[in-house]
C-alpha cells in the first residue's frame, strides 16, 4: 500500500507553522490514518495562528527554508474565538510586503486545515512541497547571509581573481 518512493535531486525544506487545535490535529489524523505526505515538511506547533508572528516566517526563510506553510483553524472555529481572524488580516498584509521586497509568494502558503481534514493536510503539504521543488532552492536569504560590508571582507573573490590574472 506504500507508493514507491521517487528519488529527487533537490529535497526542499518546508517549515509549517500550525495551530495546535486544528491543523496539528489534522496532521496527526493524517499520520494515524497512515496517509502519505512528503517528509520535507517540519511542523512547528503554536497555540494559535494568532501567535504566529510574521517575523517567524522571515526567520524560517533566513535559516534556510525553501517554503513556508502557515495553517490553522477555519474561520469561526478558532479555539480562542478570533485568533485566526486577526492572523488572516496580518498575513494578508505581510505577504504583500514580502512580495514587494522581492520574495516569490509561491514559496509561502496559508491554509485552513481542521482536525478532521487529514486529507486536506496531505494535499496542502504535497502541493507546496512539489511546487517549491519545481522552483528549486530559495537562495535569496541564504546568499544574503553570506554577504559582508566591503570593509569587513577579507580575501574577496574579485581580488583573488585579479591576483590570479597577474
Amino acid at each position, binding site marked *: 500500500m506504500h507508493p514507491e518512493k521517487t528519488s529527487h535531486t533537490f529535497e526542499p525544506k518546508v517549515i509549517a507553522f500550525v495551530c495546535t487545535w486544528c491543523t496539528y490535529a489534522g496532521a496527526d489524523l493524517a499520520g494515524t490514518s497512515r496517509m502519505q505526505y512528503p517528509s520535507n515538511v517540519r511542523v512547528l506547533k503554536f497555540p494559535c495562528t494568532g501567535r504566529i508572528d510574521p*517575523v517567524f516566517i*522571515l526567520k524560517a526563510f533566513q535559516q534556510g527554508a525553501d517554503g513556508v506553510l502557515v495553517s490553522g483553524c477555519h474561520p469561526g472555529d478558532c479555539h480562542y474565538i478570533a485568533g485566526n481572524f486577526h492572523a488572516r488580516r496580518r498575513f494578508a498584509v505581510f505577504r504583500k510586503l514580502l512580495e514587494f521586497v522581492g520574495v516569490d509568494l509561491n514559496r509561502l502558503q496559508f491554509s485552513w486545515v481542521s482536525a478532521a481534514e487529514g486529507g486536506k493536510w496531505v494535499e496542502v503539504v504535497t502541493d507546496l512541497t512539489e511546487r517549491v521543488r519545481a522552483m528549486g532552492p530559495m537562495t535569496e536569504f541564504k546568499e544574503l547571509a553570506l554577504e*559582508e560590508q566591503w570593509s569587513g571582507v577579507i580575501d574577496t573573490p574579485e581580488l583573488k581573481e585579479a591576483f590570479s590574472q597577474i
Partner: protein
Amino acid sequence: MTQSIDTSSYSAITEAIQAEAQRVLGDGTVTAVIGYAAARRKGSAQPIVISQADDAARLIFTPACVNNLAVYLTKAKKEIPRNGRIGIVVKGCDLKALVGLMGESQLKRENLYLIGIPCSGVLASTIQPDTELTADTLASKCRECDAHQPTGCDFVPPQLPVAPELEKKYQAEISRLEALTPAERWAYWKEQFAKCIKCYACRQVCPFCFCEQCLCDRNKPQMVETTPRPAGNTAWHIVRAMHLAGRCAGCAECERVCPMDIPLNLLNRKMAKELKELFDYEAGFEVNDKGPLTMFTEKDDQSFIK
C-alpha cells in the same frame, strides 16, 4: 522652469504661532510648547521646547521646519516634562501621527493644545536649509499631501495653504517596482538595504516606534541580527515596515532622516496602499481606537488562503 511654491504666508504664520504660544504659556493653559526655532546654519530650524512666555518669540515656521514633533510626546522620550497640558506645533502630517497615538491610547486629547499649521510644504532632506521652496526642492511626501490644512486643532492661523498639483513620486515609484519581477525587486532592495548602517535614526524619529525595548534590540531570542550586514539590515527593514503597517501616518520622517538615503517611506506607502485596498483604511484626522490590524470582519478577504 521650476515651479516655485508660494511660502509668503509662512512669516504671518510664524507671527501667529508666536502670539498664540505667548498667550497659552502666559495664561497657564499649557506648561510647555514644542515648536521650531532657528538654528545656526543659514535658514535652518530645529525642534525646541519652551516653557516661558518670553521664549515664544523664538518660535518660527519656515520650509526648513521639517520635523514631526509628535515624537517628543511618546513615552519613549522621557526627557520632555509631562505635567499639565502641553502645546505642540503640528503640520497636517504630524497631526495624523498624533491622532494615531491617541488611538493607541498613548496620548489624551485633553492633555494637548494643538497649534496647527496651514502648511504648503517643507524642504526635502538633502537640500540646504536656506534653499527656496520649489517643486524640485519640496519633500516628496508633500507632493502627495492630502493634509495641508489640519482640522480639529485648538488654534490654526487663518492663512490658507497653497497646494499645487504635482506628480506623485511615491505612487510612480511603487508602480514601477510592482511591475518588476520578484528577482528584480529583490535586487533593488538588496542594494538599498546594504547601505544601512543600523543607526536606527528611522526608528528613533518615528512617533510609532515607542516600544521601551525594541524587538530588534533583543538577543534572547534574537529575531533580527543586530550587526549592520545585508542579512540583518533586510530583516530589520521588513520588520520595521510590518510593525508600522496600519499605524504609519505617512510623515516620512524615517526616510528624511536616513543618513544613507534608503527610500524607507516607499515601504510604508506600499503598505498604506495595500491597507486601503484590502481594508479601506487610511490614516486621517479622526481618532479610531482600533487600527486595521487590531480588528477584523468575518468577511475579510481570504482568497490567498487554501
